[in-house]
């Protein structure tokens, strides 16, 4: 009988309210391309409560961005298809709503910011015009009122000399400032959920720190839920309450943030944590996860991670592991999660 270790039943930090604000339930997304069917998302479930920060961690091809785009409803429906799954917002399945209803929610109640602010902003309109558009389209405000609100928002996201800069064009701002403008547009209508898809990957580290602090502050003010999609384990450690790690279109681990860094329960999470160099310590050779990320057109059988896994056994090749429940707030999609938790090598 396995002894329960101390890390097992910590409640999720910062989870307010009993019902999650947003719940993704067994979502599947496929892309029908010339070369075949790409199963980008294969049964993903995660949830977000008000005021909470959920980090979705994964590398390219893990399906983290596609899941977020499905939540926002901005996937091109051919070639994308959602054969299965629900996305519940306040209990209502968004996938069953009409496009009109979804577009009302999009931007107003669930908002998204992207990695590259320069291409997300329209280069031929001033930033003031673009921010005020949110108010003109969704709240029916006049141009003048919309502009006033735009200046207010630019102040709120700490853009210096907002009143003068409201008539500037996106290319006249630096990368960090453009990201703030995108944040301003996204919080304009006080959304309940903000999805940030790699918001700071393209920015310098000092600017990244500024932006993350801004996001945290805005979240505190409005009790907004934040889904942070990233591949940076450092950023996650700084701001997240809980993490979902994705690999090959599936969630391989769910955990509160302190637990996963102290004791990961999936070989992929463990491999990632062991392989990143740290600024506060200098080690010997880095542990490197061997092999390559999976080809989404030709996924390995059984567990998608098995070709690269040091804990692999025979049944890993044939049986895809479900998300085993470790505790009320932790899950791991590995047949041998106990061994991983123990830290022993296979």
């Amino acid at each position: 009988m396995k002894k329960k270790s101390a890390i097992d039943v910590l409640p999720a930090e910062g989870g307010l309210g009993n019902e999650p604000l947003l719940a993704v339930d067994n979502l599947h997304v496929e892309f029908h391309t010339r070369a075949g069917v790409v199963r980008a998302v294969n049964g993903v479930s995660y949830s977000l409560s008000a005021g909470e920060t959920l980090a979705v961690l994964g590398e390219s091809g893990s399906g983290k961005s596609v899941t977020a785009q499905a939540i926002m409803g901005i996937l091109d429906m051919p070639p994308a298809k959602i054969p299965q799954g629900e996305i519940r917002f306040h209990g209502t399945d968004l996938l069953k709503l009409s496009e009109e209803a979804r577009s009302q929610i999009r931007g107003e109640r669930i908002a998204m910011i992207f990695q590259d602010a320069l291409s997300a902003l329209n280069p031929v309109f001033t930033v003031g015009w673009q921010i005020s558009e949110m108010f003109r389209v969704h709240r029916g405000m006049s141009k003048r009122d919309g502009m006033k609100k735009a200046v207010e928002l630019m102040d709120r996201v700490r853009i210096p000399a907002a009143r003068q800069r409201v008539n500037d064009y996106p290319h006249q701002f630096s990368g960090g400032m453009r990201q703030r403008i995108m944040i301003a547009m996204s919080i304009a209508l006080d959304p309940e959920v903000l999805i940030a898809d790699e918001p700071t990957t393209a920015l310098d580290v000092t600017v990244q720190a500024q932006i993350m602090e801004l996001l945290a502050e805005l979240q505190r003010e409005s009790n907004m839920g934040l889904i942070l999609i990233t591949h940076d384990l450092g950023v996650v450690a700084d701001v997240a309450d809980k993490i979902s790690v994705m690999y090959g279109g599936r969630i391989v681990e769910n955990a509160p943030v302190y637990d996963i860094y102290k004791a990961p329960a999936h070989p992929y999470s463990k491999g990632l944590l062991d392989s990143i160099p740290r600024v506060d310590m200098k080690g010997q050779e880095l542990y490197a996860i061997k092999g390559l990320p999976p080809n989404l057109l030709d996924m390995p059988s059984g567990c998608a991670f098995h070709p690269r896994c040091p804990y692999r056994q025979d049944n890993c090749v044939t049986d895809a592991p479900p998300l085993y429940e470790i505790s009320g707030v932790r899950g791991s999609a590995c047949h041998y999660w106990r061994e991983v938790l123990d830290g022993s090598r296979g």
Partner: protein
Amino acid sequence: MSDTNTVTAPKAPSRRKPKERKPASLWSDAWYDLRRNKVFVAGSLIAVVLVLMAFFPSVFAPQNPSACNLADARQGISSAHWFGLDNQGCDTYARVIHGARVSILVGVLTSLVTGLVGGTLGLIAGFYGRYVDVILSRVAEIFFAIPSILGALLLLSVVGRDKAGVWTVVIALAILAWPMVLRIMRAAVITAKNQDYVTAARALGASPWRISVRHILPNALAPVIVVCTMNLGVFIAGEAALSFLGVGIQSPNISWGLMIADARNRFLMAPEPLIFPAVFLSITVLSFVMIGDAVRDALDPKLR
């Protein structure tokens, strides 16, 4: 840590392996796609037939296109004359078949000439930049400005009506079209020049010659090939237009444009001598446009 990138995944027997092809360059990948493109196949078949017509007209039409009897003018379709007779009493069918030679020759030769001239100058302009580029681009713009009919008329008067032939038309068309090829090559070269692999070659100590021939040219060639292929159809139509206006091919040489011009006045009385060359002309142009379209899709890097 052993070799980190050979992934030894045990074979799952029920899984279908994705189609294995021999290691393929981008060119052979493009050819592979082309072969499967119905538009390309259709266009190419028509083009092949037309080329055969151009080089072996007597195989298709044993009749003599110059055996004309004015007394038989404007007779309709009959078993002896499948397309009827034209205003001069000549067999339309034979003339249409023989007319293919001029069209194909003009199309191919003009494409080659514009490709070589425009391509070479574009490569030089894009690669060296600065003054060389400024001079070549301005010269190209001057040629761009020459109106086509005027240019052809001038050329015809210089050469003389009896010496005028396929080459006159080729030069008249090429003079107008080479600036476009220069621009496309120049733009492609400038893009290629800024790629990291060119920087890497410079860092290795490669000479400018090696860089332009080994690195830039192969990567700049694709858009030029597409343009020259699509232009083939345009040149064929251009020759027909010039001949129609009387400043291209002169009789007794046979050209579809000339035939259309000759048949114009008596069209209502005898439509066949106009319709048949027009239809052949359209199909010819269409076939090359289809080929050009398919080539463009096959070479488009975004679809790779």
